[in-house]
């Protein structure tokens, strides 16, 4: 692949990721990881590098939402503490559960939530 084509592909992937992240306030990582893996990165490296890409993107869109007035101190503090504690627990669980099984359970929960939000 030529250099220009490669760069165009990366930019396109970035634009898709950014649009989703801005519109839905998350989910960018779910798109970046498979894109990075398609780009030839090992799964673990793709997951780690995805965070590096998503962090500035989330920072920028968070600023837009805050400027739009979407802030509630109690809600933010409670959820923030929960996410930090849960995140540590989840990282430790990673070695215990089979990734494929976890993905299927996760997909089922997401599908149910998605249908509930549409109807």
């Amino acid at each position, binding site marked *: 692949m030529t250099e220009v084509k490669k760069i165009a592909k990366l930019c396109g992937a970035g634009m898709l990721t950014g649009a989703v992240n801005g519109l839905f306030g998350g989910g960018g990582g779910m798109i970046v990881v498979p894109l990075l893996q398609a780009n030839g990165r090992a799964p673990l490296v793709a997951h780690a590098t995805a965070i590096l890409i998503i962090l500035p993107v989330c920072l920028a869109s968070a600023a837009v939402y805050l400027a739009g007035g979407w802030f509630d101190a109690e809600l933010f503090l409670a959820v923030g503490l929960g996410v930090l504690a849960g995140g540590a627990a989840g990282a430790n669980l990673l070695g215990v559960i089979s990734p494929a099984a976890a993905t299927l359970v996760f997909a089922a929960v997401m599908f149910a939530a*998605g249908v509930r939000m549409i109807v």
Partner: protein
Amino acid sequence: MRFLVYLLAGLAGGVLGGMGMGGGCVLIPILTVLCGVPQHMAQSVNLLTFLPMAAVSLHVHAENGLLDTRGVLWMIVPATLLSVLGGLFVQNVSGGALRVGFGVFLCLLSLYQFASGIKGLRAAKAGSRDSGYKAGL
């Protein structure tokens, strides 16, 4: 009481996020469907609460040499621009419409996850068959 419910919602989203599965994709529906938080507010919370956890895990990943930064700027710059535009756009979208859009996004994402999960299970099965075959030899 309100604080405790939100804390539990954060815990559930955090566990999945820590396992490397989009925590926000679960956190946002929990907050809106179960806790009655407006869609825009839930998305704002998800973006902001992601930042400290991401900073910590990024530090760990960097120390473990797991970051591969080749070409990432070509993704980061357009992604940041489009995320600002997307964020500005939805400020004028009603909560109800945004919620439906998010629901459609979740359904599409879950179908993709199903496909890759089944692929993973098949690969694991094929792997164990291979090793069994070798052990049999």
